């Protein structure tokens, strides 16, 4: 495996591990999975317009982040329901725009030749995501325990939520190449869910989640070249394996 691909997939895995911790603690498991689907119409549109599919995916994901945020602002609507409907719709539209081989690649990911623009995005985006989350971690933690408590500490909860959703969208975008639309949500959720079983404090959770995420990404990639199988599904299979093993060591609640 060439070093730039190794670097890109590790960057993706680190960002997924950290973002996942907050997503799991914020009980966004379902929304996370659904949100990754929103990249599909973007990719389809980019293919129709002969643009780089990643650009289409990123643009659509950012729109999706703002859309969820807007829905969260309105009370009285069940966010999970609306997210489910809107993003299944996105999946449907996306499948109509892309077809055949392209669709499979978009859904499950396909490693290939890395273009320079993609390399730059693939290295800067994880850095930006991790720096933002490290900076905002205290605010995010207080806000997930109670938005009211957060407000009394002068935390601007709405702005913070938007920042988190954008970080989340960027992380999904990072996984489009290796994991595709269907599986990237899983790399965000599974390592963090595994870490949540085992960790007794927040630092341990972050370290475990990043460890499982990077470990499964590297192990899945290595297995793929040995078994001559697609990379993405193997990465998720390894991560899911870690999750099931972690159940045995589950910390007593």
């Amino acid at each position: 495996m060439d070093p730039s691909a190794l670097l890109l997939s590790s960057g993706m895995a680190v960002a997924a591990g950290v973002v996942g911790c907050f997503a799991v603690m914020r009980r966004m498991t379902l929304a996370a999975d659904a949100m990754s689907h929103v990249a599909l119409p973007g990719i389809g549109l980019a293919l129709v317009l002969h643009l780089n599919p990643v650009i289409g995916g990123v643009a659509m994901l950012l729109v999706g982040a703002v859309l969820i945020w807007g829905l969260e602002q309105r009370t009285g609507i069940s966010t999970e329901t609306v997210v489910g409907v809107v993003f299944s719709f996105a999946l449907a539209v996306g499948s109509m725009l892309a077809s055949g081989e392209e669709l499979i690649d978009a859904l499950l990911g396909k490693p290939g030749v890395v273009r320079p623009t993609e390399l730059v995005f693939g290295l800067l985006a994880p850095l930006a995501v991790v720096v933002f989350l490290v900076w905002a971690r205290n605010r995010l933690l207080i806000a997930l325990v109670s938005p009211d408590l957060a407000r009394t500490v002068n935390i601007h909860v709405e702005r913070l939520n938007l920042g988190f959703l954008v970080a989340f969208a960027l992380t999904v975008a990072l996984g489009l190449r290796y994991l595709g639309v269907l599986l990237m949500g899983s790399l965000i959720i599974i390592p963090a869910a595994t870490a949540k079983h085992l960790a007794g404090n927040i630092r341990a959770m972050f370290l475990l989640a990043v460890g499982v995420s990077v470990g499964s990404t590297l192990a899945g990639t290595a297995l793929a070249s040995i078994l001559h199988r697609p990379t993405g599904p193997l990465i998720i299979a390894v991560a899911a394996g870690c999750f099931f093993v972690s159940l045995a060591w589950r910390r007593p609640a």
Partner: protein
Amino acid sequence: MPDRLVVSSLGVRFGKTQVLRSLSFSVPDGATMAVIGPNGAGKTALFKALIGSLPSTGTVAWAEGTRFGYVPQRLDLERDLPLSGRDFLHAKAALVKASVSEVKRVTRLVNLGHEVARRPIGGLSGGQFQRLLLAFALLGHPNVLLFDEPTTGIDEPGEELLYATVERLQREEKLTVILISHELSLVYRMAGLVLCLGRRGVSCFGPPRQILTPETLERTYGAPMDHYLHDVHGP
């Protein structure tokens, strides 16, 4: 004494229901005000409007330099949230630039053991979690404490300890305290001012002697209050 809080014609509505209607009162600096009233009268909604987390009409004016400590009623937490009490306190300490010794000071103040603070917050007992919330509220030297039924789910000794702590702090740090409580004996003991909220926007405001009368209480709760009055005039 200058006012810490001045509220005028405050209104809050949930959809078509007007929960609070043209509410006006003021709280002097260092005073204790109790909010009483039946369930659904908008006590918690009032608190949320006071900290700006619910949209409202009218004005809520806090004195300049107000720092809140808020102890909410009950939080819906997952039991296996891997966030320890220490993590939670240090998160606020970092934001309000409080030192490690300040964190130790507040955990001592509320009698929260070292061992307890290391446990994940979802696994704490009701009383332990309430003390953790109080420690969280006290970090960063607040000058206003907001208590939303702070003793729900706490046994009696725990409750006594909590109020003793608050009373001591109030003397030492000149805190303004606003609390929601159903226990009129406690209100009588602690509060210099009482705000009553009844259903359908009925409200009254004044010192306990004036507010905690059979007539006013009956109007507020919509039922005779023999039981509560017993408490009030008890030892």
